[in-house]
């Protein structure tokens, strides 16, 4: 079911631009990947962009996001610097972490993107700690914490929900439920699919959105975020989605047997990039697309032209002054 909400024209432009931008960045990453210029494993969000875009749309620049190793979409949706991201993927010194992070640990603190982590679930309580500081500052800011469905199986997930609700922290938990942890479907990992019901027992609103509709996600996120800006405490969104590519790497993996290409077909129909694009005039869309392409081209050039860090950087930043 595609939501009935009609977005304003500027909303549509903005949402389309971000959706398309993320899609194209990751398609470019996939294209470049076989050249070995990208120096770390990449976990692509292609097909899942609507969640990051919808959930980040209500955010102000003073708000924060946190995400997992599958974090390109959240990074870009929150306004993370693409040049620094690409240089980081290339392992270059102008990368957001000077080459020490790679794709799995992206960070952009000037744009309020917290550092990502390759250990599943670990960023969830860290985001809550950030939320605690936002609550103390009492300036109405919030954090959106993205996680996969697998991450909800880690003990720290429930621990964090309890603590966040107890302290009414301004944190929106967003589960990107693509039904797989690597190659294992949730039916083999979850005793039941009553996740939202479980989360609600911690005393926070918990909503599942089935169809990946960027407008529905945005609407739900907006409602909860507005509420928590006024002290309303945490909330939880479970967004069904689908990972189009393999778990890690640039390719597809439908031939490997653990899932069927039909699953993909159903989700391609719901793809939000053409859907939002369809709401724009051809001229508008082409202008946006062209702008995106040049942004990406520039970022890739930036990454290519940046240098690898000097070996003396190995010892830098082990301890903070």
């Amino acid at each position, binding site marked *: 079911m595609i939501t009935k909400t009609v977005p304003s024209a500027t909303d549509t432009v903005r949402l389309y631009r971000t959706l398309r931008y993320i899609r194209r960045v990751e398609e470019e990453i996939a294209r470049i990947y076989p050249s070995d210029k990208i120096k770390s494993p990449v976990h692509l969000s292609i097909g899942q962009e609507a969640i990051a875009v919808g959930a980040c749309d209500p955010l102000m620049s003073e708000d924060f996001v946190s995400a997992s190793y599958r974090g390109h979409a959240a990074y870009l949706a929150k306004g993370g610097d693409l040049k620094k991201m690409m240089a980081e993927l290339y392992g270059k010194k102008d*990368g*957001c*972490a*000077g*080459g*020490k*992070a790679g794709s799995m*640990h992206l*960070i*952009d*603190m000037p744009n309020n993107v*917290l*550092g990502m*982590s390759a*250990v599943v679930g*670990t*960023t*969830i*309580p*860290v*985001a*809550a*700690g*950030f*939320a*605690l*500081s*936002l609550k*103390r500052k009492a300036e109405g800011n919030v954090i959106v914490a993205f996680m996969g469905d697998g991450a909800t199986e880690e*003990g*720290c997930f429930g*621990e*964090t929900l*309890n*603590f966040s609700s*107890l302290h009414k922290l301004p944190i929106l938990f967003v589960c990107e439920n693509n039904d797989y942890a690597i190659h294992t479907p949730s039916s083999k990992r979850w005793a039941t699919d009553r996740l939202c019901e479980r989360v609600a027992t911690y005393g926070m609103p918990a909503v599942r959105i089935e169809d990946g509709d960027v407008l529905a996600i945005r609407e739900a996120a907006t409602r909860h975020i507005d509420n928590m800006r006024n002290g309303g405490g945490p909330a939880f969104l479970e967004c069904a989605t689908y990972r189009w590519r393999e778990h890690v790497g640039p390719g597809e993996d439908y031939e490997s047997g653990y899932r069927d290409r039909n699953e993909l077909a159903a989700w391609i129909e719901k793809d939000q990039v053409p859907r939002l694009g369809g709401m724009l005039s051809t001229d508008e869309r082409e202008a946006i697309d062209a702008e995106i392409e040049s942004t990406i081209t520039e970022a890739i050039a930036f990454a290519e032209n940046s240098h690898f860090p000097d070996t003396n950087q190995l010892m*830098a*930043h*082990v*301890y*903070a*002054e």
Partner: protein
Amino acid sequence: MQNKSTHSDRSLAYVDALREGMEQEMADDPQVFVFGLDVDDHKAIQGSTKGLLERFGPERVFGTPLSEDAMTGVAIGAAMAGMRPIHVHIRMDFMMLAMNQLVNIGAKAHYMYGGQVKVPLVVRSMIGKSWGQGAQHSQGLHSLFMHIPGLKVVAPSNAYDAKGTMIAAIRDNNPVIFVEHRLLYYTEAPVPEESYVVELGKGRVCREGDDITIVGISNMLMEALRAQEILQDAKVSAEVVDPITLHPMDIDTICESIEKTGRLLIVDNAWTRCGASAEIAAQVAERFGGQRAIPIKRMGFADTPCPTTPALEDVFYANPVTIAKAAHTMVHPEDDGWTPNPEKATLSYQSQFKGPF
């Protein structure tokens, strides 16, 4: 605020020194807060958080659910956001639940994120002993943290250092594992009232001597001092060194002492295998290895889990007599049957030393 004179007319217990250090930093810096299981109840972590709730309120002093893993993550996140959390565990054993956050995020964030964030976090934990603490309430696991670059580890042996390293740890912009020992809580030392820092990474020679260097860690420093007294009887002059910080370790002070004594005995309140004592021994061996043959010996927990019954617990730990005997044998290998006068030994067990030694 650098190392002040260690003189003070006021004698204070270790537990109160810890509390005072935290309190002064909390008064100075509104970003400092204390949390963890039971920090805000009437027992106040054996008294070490007493009065903080009343003075600073429940936003800065609060208990938590039993969720060590997530609470460690919360502490790390708050620290990245510019706060300065002190996370308290009443036993070090429970920190095994916090390993993922400490090792995989806390220790690495500053580096892995290219310096974009800092993690100014203090993790306090107490090593238990006696009263039947048993295998899960007695572990000194500091070496696990020493192993991980990005963490600092400090283990003060007396009230003076407890306050000064606590203040240093709170001001440090890195995660500092703060190792306390329950049996030290009621030992006293002259402690200045004003705020002062005992710099992390500097050790101290507590007793000068010529024949052997004894390094004592945490409350084993206390036992080493007792052993030193026993050894005087046998005309063995032991130099006793307190590393205070375990990482970064002040290996220079230890090696200078060895230059003089030519022998090294390390006594830890932990297992020796891959322990702090192994690290010290290895560094000393690397330094002197090519040039001079240094007799080296480590003592620590018996190579077993800690038994509950005192009949076995008594032989699980090093004590002044076993330390003195080991040192004596190292100095006089030809006479390794030496045993201290039992009366003298008993007396020495009761010796209380006023730090900072």
